[in-house]
């Protein structure tokens, strides 16, 4: 059962027929597709959390077992890598009977075991590669993670694994770009990284024509965007703490502002809808926020709009938590006196309340508005 805004199948089919949007001959096929799609629902978030906690604890116990038993010597890179590959193969092997297993406790035990083997295997593969090539060799962890993710992604049945694994690749790449580029300016590389993450997130989360199997990569890309935003929004030094050089945030801020405008257009149903007065005002506000150098606030609004449009509760919750956090960071990070900060806060708050008044006056914020 869905807790998102929804309509019952019969009412929708009737409405389509009445509006001339569905031919009588196609109705049966659409109804059958509805039935099939309804059977193939996403598991609810609480089951994913339960599964993740169980897998995490079991993984800790298995890693402790491997370490205490000295089956794995963490001095030998080849041995560690071999164990990692063996566990990944075991996970792939377990995923075959998992697909055929009937729903029940046996299925869930097998699913948890597969997820745990996959997690331990990936960790050991990366540890093994680092031992073989040395921690100081650039891009080893990223390439190993990319390889194991690419190989296991099609067979991995766990939706959480499909999000975390690509995110680990992105986080590792970000580390390489920032931590190992001490000689040069990382701004351009970071902007390019953010552009790729934005493109992937936009395509994989907002387009309904994207392959469903790739949707978790979209979430990972959104997580990567959030990580970049956290870095540049985290204080006065624009990421010096992580890159050892100041990062120029302006290209990323511009991208975020444009992304917010594009998201508003997407949520409204198309770029042409931006010509409508309330949406034009919203787009203008998004661009002004871009000029204010508030990447965190723009990103939080982006999360809220995407979460609201997709009826995605976790995204909305993250957005709700992110908005006040980034607001506090923005005002804290600005190099202003308390009096200037006070004036800025009261001014921006009054501007928003005036906008609220305007919405009320134009009828944009009423339940019965057209």
């Amino acid at each position, binding site marked *: 059962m869905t807790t998102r805004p929804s309509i019952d199948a019969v009412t929708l089919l009737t409405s*389509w027929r009445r509006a001339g*949007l569905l031919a009588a001959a196609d109705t049966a096929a659409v109804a059958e597709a509805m039935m099939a799609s309804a*059977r193939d629902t996403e598991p609810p978030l609480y089951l994913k959390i339960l*599964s993740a906690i169980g897998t995490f604890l079991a993984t800790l116990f298995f890693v402790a077992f491997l370490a205490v038993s000295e089956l794995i010597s963490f001095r030998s890179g080849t041995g560690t890598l071999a164990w990692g590959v063996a566990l990944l193969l075991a996970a792939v092997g377990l995923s075959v009977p998992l697909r055929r297993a009937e729903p*029940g406790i046996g299925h869930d035990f097998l*699913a948890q075991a*597969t997820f745990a083997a996959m997690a331990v295997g990936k960790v050991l593969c990366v540890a093994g590669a680092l031992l073989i090539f040395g921690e100081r060799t650039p891009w080893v962890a990223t390439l190993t993670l990319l390889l194991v993710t690419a190989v296991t992604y099609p067979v991995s*049945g766990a939706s959480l694994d499909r999000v975390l694994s690509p995110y680990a690749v992105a986080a590792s790449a970000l580390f390489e770009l920032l931590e190992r580029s001490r000689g040069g300016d990382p701004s351009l590389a970071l902007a390019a990284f953010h552009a790729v993450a934005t493109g992937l997130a936009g395509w994989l989360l907002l387009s309904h024509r994207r392959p469903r199997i790739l949707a978790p990569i979209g979430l990972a890309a959104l997580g990567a965007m959030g990580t970049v935003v956290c870095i540049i929004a985290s204080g006065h030094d624009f990421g010096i703490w992580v890159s050892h050089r100041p990062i120029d945030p302006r290209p990323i801020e511009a991208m975020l502002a444009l992304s917010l405008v594009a998201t508003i257009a997407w949520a409204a149903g198309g770029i042409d809808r931006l010509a409508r007065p309330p949406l034009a005002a919203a787009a203008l506000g998004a661009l002004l926020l871009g000029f204010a150098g508030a990447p965190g606030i723009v990103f939080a609004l982006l999360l809220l709009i995407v979460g609201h449009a997709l009826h995605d509760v976790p995204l909305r919750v993250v957005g709700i938590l992110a908005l006040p956090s980034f607001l506090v960071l923005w005002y804290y990070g600005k190099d202003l006196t308390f009096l200037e900060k*006070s004036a800025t806060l009261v001014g921006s708050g009054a501007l928003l309340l005036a906008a609220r008044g305007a919405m009320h006056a134009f009828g944009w914020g009423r339940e*019965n508005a057209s």
Partner: protein
Amino acid sequence: MNADVTEAAPTPAAIRIDRRLIDRLAARDLVSAAARDHALELIEPPRRWGLWAARLITVLGAALVLAGIVYFFAFNWNRIPPLTKLAAIAAMIAAAVAVVGILGFGRLVSEVAAVAAVMLVGVFLAVDGQIHQTGADAWQLFAGWAALTLVWAILANSAAVWAIWLAVVNLAALTWWDQVHPFAATHQATRYIVPMVVDGAFLAAREVLAGRGVAWVAGRWTRFYLLLPLVATATVAAVTLIDRPRDLGTEEWSAAAVLVLVFALLVPLHRRWRPDVAALAATTIGAAVVLDFVVFQLLTGGHRADLGIFFFMGLTTLGIFAAAIAWLRAVARSMEA
């Protein structure tokens, strides 16, 4: 399909079409772009976006103005005479109360004003404590804050006001324990008895009132606002108790009794009396973690774990959580039936 946790097939009569299903139909070209837009407008009429944006802007705008006022005081703090500081805060409290008085309860603006009034009482007490150097402990500030705003919370009939009031009470209970008891006692399970009893009592009251149709308390978030801290503290307290199973005194046994009561009541509460599978899942997560820890303690007897125990615990953990998932799925099916 997700293999980690799968759902059973729904009955045809129970099919609800949400955005994801419509997008899938459109992606397979079973329905046109116009039909997709039509369906999305039925599910989420565009006017709701206006309402949503209006509420967001109201809350944000009020928060920014309030924060600006706080910064103004911070800038001029040393130059403001003590009486003026207190008078200014009192004036803001009066203004907030006046807004509620003029507009009446049940509107977003008056709810924001009521929340501001309750928060400002805490600011007033903190400033008063700083000016007069009363030497009071932090728990006394929180307890006084809760006592002074209790009547407002009762009158306001607002879940947001109660949420803040309850957070203050929990802070009072925890800081009281930490400041009155010796340092070693801050790691005892008994520290959590008062918060568990308070949160548990409020959860019970919330469920009774929501069941009687009291609208302002019935928002689903209020259930989780009370339940999640309750389960979290119960889990931490249980793990703390199990970690040191010897030399249990009266207080520890009392904590154990409260813990058993909490878990024993929460399961039927959200399984039978007020069915909510997501709330039941929160309790199940806590119970599964506690059970896992109990098995580990039983196997090790408080000593170092050996090789076999780690392997056995890995399998046991998978078993416990797989059973929990299977049970929750069965419960969800029976609730939908």
